[in-house]
């Protein structure tokens, strides 16, 4: 990693077992005879010119996650293994890169070019690949030769705990061959079932599932560039192309995209991903492109193209059934479609959770009686089912007993009531004094004991009107003498 020919060896240290020990070291340090776990004082005695710095676990984790994101260009199934490894499930992907050899070559070359030292191996099982990458010399383990090739490797290659490995070594069991051949039952009783499980996993007798970092997209289209692209016009053109490629797949499945993600792989290994959400299933390439355009223009400093992007991928993360309708030849696009397109555009630019609509909740507590949900998440055609009582069906109209504007947090007011249980006579809210001339109430709303606990206070709501004509919604928190000695008054809403 260091370009200077006279550079000293570099190590990362951390405090382990009450001593500063080496956690990571570069190739140069390894050739000088240093190894992991050695104390810093020993290492300094061997190599006085040593350059050392503290281990940054979080930074390493971020870096590894970044590499994992970059590896997404090979396969969508990438999992992080410990603090220094990655698993890539490349089943069915190798032909895209010209075979297994070429794939490994490509990964290793590109990562080395980015300045990492890499070991990679391909095998039938994650265990065998892990063993070969860390302890073996081969790159590719063919399916029928797994047993033969990982047999001579040391036991540590089985991903066992250090203590177990030491114990097994004391017994003279040094290689995988040794444990693979001995009787299984005594081994399990003596060293635990872990040894057998790891052995079976490496040899493919037991399945091992790797958990990928990102969910696998339902559909995906990508385009690689021999010459990296950097212009926004080129990127938009590519997205449009990819989206129109996907159209046939949408039509075959009878779906449209609800959630889409664009991933831009930069030449230097950085990956940028932008996600958008659609309120109705989308198929049209132009509408997909317009969403991404809004999303790009919402970025504070635009896309950082660096030296260019060499791979652009469009992932469809969520699909929904697409109901094909006949287009009205006179009106063209229906007003509903236009509105959905607007909601999507607003969501792409401002953030999906900033474009919302009301949803009803089944409770009497005013602030809990409704919520808002992102408008793009709501299922289309179900807006009538939100269930607000409009009183249109019944012959009698609803009384106007609820305010139109509502304070998110009830604000305390200083109120004077004629009788302890009665409405306020005058009150002070936001430093202004109001003389109440008319009032209605109380409307008692009890707390929800199953949520607020047994001692939560009831509310007595009053609608009051002052001399000038302001109409307010106030409540007294707590029943006088039954729940509290000095009930507090709160302002909760404004009537028209």
């Amino acid at each position, binding site marked *: 990693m260091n370009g200077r020919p006279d550079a000293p060896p570099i190590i990362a240290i951390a405090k382990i077992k009450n001593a500063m020990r080496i956690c990571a070291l570069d190739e140069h340090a390894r050739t000088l005879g240093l190894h992991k776990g050695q104390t810093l004082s020993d290492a300094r005695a061997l190599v006085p010119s040593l350059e050392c710095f503290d281990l940054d676990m979080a930074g390493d984790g971020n870096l590894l996650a970044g590499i994992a994101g970059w590896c997404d260009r090979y396969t969508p199934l990438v999992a992080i293994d410990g603090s220094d490894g990655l698993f890539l499930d490349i089943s069915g992907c190798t032909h895209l890169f010209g075979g297994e050899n070429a794939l490994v070559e490509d990964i290793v070359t590109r990562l080395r070019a980015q300045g990492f030292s890499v070991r990679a191996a391909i095998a039938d099982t994650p265990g065998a690949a892990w063993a070969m990458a860390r302890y073996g010399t081969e790159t590719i383990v063919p399916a029928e030769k797994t047993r033969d090739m990982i047999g001579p490797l040391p036991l540590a290659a089985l991903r066992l705990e250090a203590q177990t490995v030491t114990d097994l070594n004391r017994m003279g069991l040094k290689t995988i061959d040794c444990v693979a051949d001995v009787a299984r039952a005594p081994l399990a009783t003596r060293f635990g079932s872990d040894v057998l499980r790891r052995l079976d996993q490496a040899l493919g007798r037991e399945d091992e599932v790797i958990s990928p970092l990102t969910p696998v997209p339902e559909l995906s289209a990508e385009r690689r560039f021999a010459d990296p692209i950097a212009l926004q016009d080129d990127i938009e053109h590519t997205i449009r192309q990819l989206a129109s490629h996907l159209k046939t797949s949408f039509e075959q499945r009878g779906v449209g995209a609800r959630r889409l993600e664009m991933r831009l792989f930069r030449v230097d290994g950085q990956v940028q991903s932008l996600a958008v959400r659609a309120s109705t299933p989308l198929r049209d390439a132009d509408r997909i492109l317009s969403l991404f355009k809004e999303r790009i223009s919402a970025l504070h400093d635009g896309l950082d193209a660096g030296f260019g992007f060499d791979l652009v991928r469009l992932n469809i993360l969520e699909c929904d059934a697409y109901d094909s309708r006949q287009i009205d030849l006179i009106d063209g696009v229906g007003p509903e479609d236009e509105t959905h397109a607007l909601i999507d555009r607003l969501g792409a*630019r401002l953030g999906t959770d900033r474009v919302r609509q009301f949803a009803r909740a089944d409770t009497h507590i005013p602030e809990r009686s409704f919520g808002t949900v992102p408008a793009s998440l709501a299922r289309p055609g179900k807006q009538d089912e939100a269930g607000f009582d409009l009183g249109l069906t019944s012959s009698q109209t609803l009384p106007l007993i609820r305010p*139109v504007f509502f304070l998110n947090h009830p604000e305390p007011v200083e109120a004077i009531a004629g009788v302890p249980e009665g409405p306020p006579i005058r009150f002070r809210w936001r430093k202004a004094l109001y003389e109440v001339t008319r009032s209605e109430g109380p409307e008692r709303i009890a707390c929800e004991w199953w949520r607020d606990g047994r001692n939560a206070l009831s509310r007595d709501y009053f609608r009051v009107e002052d001399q000038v004509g*302001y109409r307010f919604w106030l409540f007294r928190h707590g029943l006088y003498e039954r729940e509290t000695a000095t009930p507090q008054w709160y302002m909760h809403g404004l009537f028209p």
Partner: protein
Amino acid sequence: MHAATKLQDLHALRHAVRNLSERHDRPASRHGRLAFGISAIDAALHGGLTIGALHEVRCGFARDIGAATGFLSAILAGLSAQKHGRILWIDDPASSLDAGHLFPAGLAQLGLDPARFVIVRPVDLQGAMWAASEAVKCAGLTAIILHLKGNPAGFDMTATRRLMLRAQKNGVLTFLLRQSGAEEASAAATRWCVRPAPSNGAADFEPGIGMMRLSLVLERNRNGPTGQWSISWNHSKRAFEHVPEDFVSRLHSPADRPDSPPQMGQVVALERAS
């Protein structure tokens, strides 16, 4: 010869003036008008509120927001019976700090379906302005309300003119709800100032609170006179009614003291001298 040229010039000028005045009128009225049902107000508006236009509803204080929203909701309830699109309510983040948020149950009682509302809450004023100018392009919407607080410097004449032109083009009723803001020049077709007025008590329960009653001032009207009215809500008809002005409560300015500062919206029609 000389007189004929003059006459020609005069005709050309009159034609130009007519064109200018029609340019404001025609595209707006193409999308129809929304009548109030109160003859005095409808006369001032030439038949009602133009649907394809920007209108400003202003209230002097944050506590007046209830009245202003009530006024708007009543208009929207009337319109939403005719048009079946969504209603886009854009909240400037500064506005909701003072006044809180819309309460769906209250809207439903005024006859507006809360499920038709789409609430947009951008992080800043620029986002709100962008959302409004984007939404006005969408003819499928019933109405757009941009809720602002005060008179922000970023929202200027150019921004209102853009909204007005797009509203005219697409026929979307666009409102600028200016909470605790002063009068400001804008391209809006009308500007209203709304204040609550004391209700006269419920019909069946005298000490109770009656229907909402508002004191309306039409401060600016591009194509007609301004005016001042007192209106009250008739809940069974779901419409506003005119309340005859209560002249007793208004005092004349005293003769021996300086005149009070002129108030907005009170226009006295004097007979012409010539």
